[in-house]
Every structure is written in structure tokens, then in C-alpha cells.
């Protein structure tokens, strides 16, 4: 099975979600996450492979801008057209408070050349939302494997 976390960028909320899913984020040190805030990894629009969990589930992230619901529909339609089901690919949108502001800020700074790491304000804000994100992902994982 494959799990795809979608969010405005592939390298912020979605990447944190992927790392929580894989149990790779024991504390709130976001700088330990590979590619965190690296907008260069988000630039192409290709899904980003994060890793595999103990059940061999492959975890990916994808940045879709502000059109999260629309892209979810598109990906699920393509999955159906290609004759796959939710047993093969689960699309999970990550929607947390203040998200549009964070993404806009990260994208603006990326345009100005600051694309290699997460700006402090974005990192701080995401750290504050970490408990909420942990709960969301842990519930999702429980549901997925139940």
C-alpha cells in the first residue's frame, strides 16, 4: 500500500505528517527531518518519497498549492482510471489552522531565493501545531490498520 499526504507544499505539514506516520519524529525537532522546508524538493510537483513503515507501506508527500480538495479529486480519479483502489493508494489531505498563511510565506521567501530551508516563523508556527498533527496522524494510522 502507498500513502500520499497532500498539503500546500510537500516539504512542510505533509512532510511532518509523513515522518509522524513513519515514527521518525520522536521529539519536536523539525530540523532533523530530511528535506524539511527545502522548497527545491517541492518545485517540480512530483510526489516526494519519504520512506516505508514496518508494514511495507510506502509514504509520499505532494505539494498541491491551495487547491487541496481539487487535487485530491484528481488523484483519486486517476487512481480509478488506472484501475487501482484505496487499497493501493490512500490520499490524505493535511489541513491545519493557519495553513494558507504558512504556505504563502514559505512560497514568497522561496521566490526571493530563500528556498533551501524553512523560515524561522514557519518552523515555529508548525512546531506549535505539532501536537494537533500528531493526533490527526495517529488516528489516521489506527484507522488505516484496523
Amino acid at each position, binding site marked *: 500500500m*502507498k500513502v*500520499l499526504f497532500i498539503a500546500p507544499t510537500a516539504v512542510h505539514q505533509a512532510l511532518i505528517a509523513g515522518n509522524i506516520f513513519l515514527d521518525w519524529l520522536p521529539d519536536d525537532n523539525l530540523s532533523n527531518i530530511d528535506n524539511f522546508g527545502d522548497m527545491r524538493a517541492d518545485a*517540480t*510537483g*512530483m*510526489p516526494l518519497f519519504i520512506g516505508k513503515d514496518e508494514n511495507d507501506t*510506502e509514504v*509520499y508527500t*505532494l505539494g*498541491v*498549492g491551495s*487547491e487541496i*480538495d*481539487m*487535487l*485530491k*479529486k*484528481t*488523484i483519486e*480519479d*486517476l*487512481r480509478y*482510471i*488506472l484501475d*487501482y483502489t484505496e487499497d*493501493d*493508494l490512500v490520499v490524505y489531505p493535511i489541513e491545519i489552522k493557519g495553513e494558507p498563511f504558512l504556505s504563502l510565506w514559505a512560497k514568497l521567501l522561496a521566490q526571493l531565493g530563500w528556498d533551501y530551508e524553512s523560515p524561522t516563523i514557519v518552523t515555529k508556527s508548525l512546531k506549535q501545531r505539532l501536537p494537533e498533527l500528531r493526533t490527526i496522524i495517529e488516528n489516521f494510522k489506527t484507522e488505516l490498520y484496523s
Partner: protein
Amino acid sequence: MIIIYHCFGGSHSSVTAAAVHLGLLGKNRIPSDEELMAIPYFDKTVNGDFGHIRFMGVDEYNNRIYVLGKKALGDRCNNTLIGIGRVLGSSEKVLPVNTMTSVNWLMKLGGFSSRRLGIVWPGRNLVSYGTRKAFFDLVNLVEITRLKSIQVEEMAI
């Protein structure tokens, strides 16, 4: 193979390209307003259609032709569709085509008036006129796409 023509609204340029691909419109002459309006989905989409990949038909090589309205995703949409195909292990089956490269300002203005503002009569006339002006660019894009699809099929064999 699955060919997905995509544009902003999935209502005009992508639908026209798909119609040319499927032979619903001839390639050698500019279609009339009536012929354009007779194409399935042409200037008929609603907000809920954004993001849905809609089936248009099957071409003579058994390729399935679809259209998609992807809003302002631009070329990123190509990579996303190919990338999802790759994640599923079927990237060679997906050929996305961005038809926005053939869209002129008349189509943008007319499409916006007709679909977003709901001012159908002048908007539809404008978009129809713009589509006719862009028609041979779209035909060219379809021809390139058909060649690409044949090449991809040959490489797969």
C-alpha cells in the same frame, strides 16, 4: 494509454483538443460556433467539475482520452499526474497535455465571463471566437500528442 488534456477550466481548449483528437472536429477547417457548442462539455462545466478527470472517448489506437480543469496549476499538473502514475507503477500509461499553451486572451476573457461570472451570452461568443482563432494551434498540439503516444507505445513494446 490514457491521454489527459488539461486547461484552467476543463471547458474550452482541453475539450476542443480532445474533440480534435477523437475526430469529433475535422483538422483541416475551422469549426463553426455550432460545431464547437455540440462538443460534449464545451462551455458547459460547473465549479464542481474542477479537478475531475472526465472521459471524452477512445481513439483509433485504443487510447482513452480525458479532459481536466486544473485551475492555475500550470505545468506542475503534468508532473503531478505523471508522478502519481509512477507511484502506482503505471507512469508509462499516462500522457498529460497542457493545452494552456494554445489559449489566447479572448478565450481567457470569454471563459471567465461565461463560466465564472455567469455572463453566458457575450462570454460564450467571445470564447467561441477565441477558440476558432486558436484552432490550428490546438490541432498542432494534438498532432504532437498523437505522435508522442505512438512513440511511447512503441517504446513499451
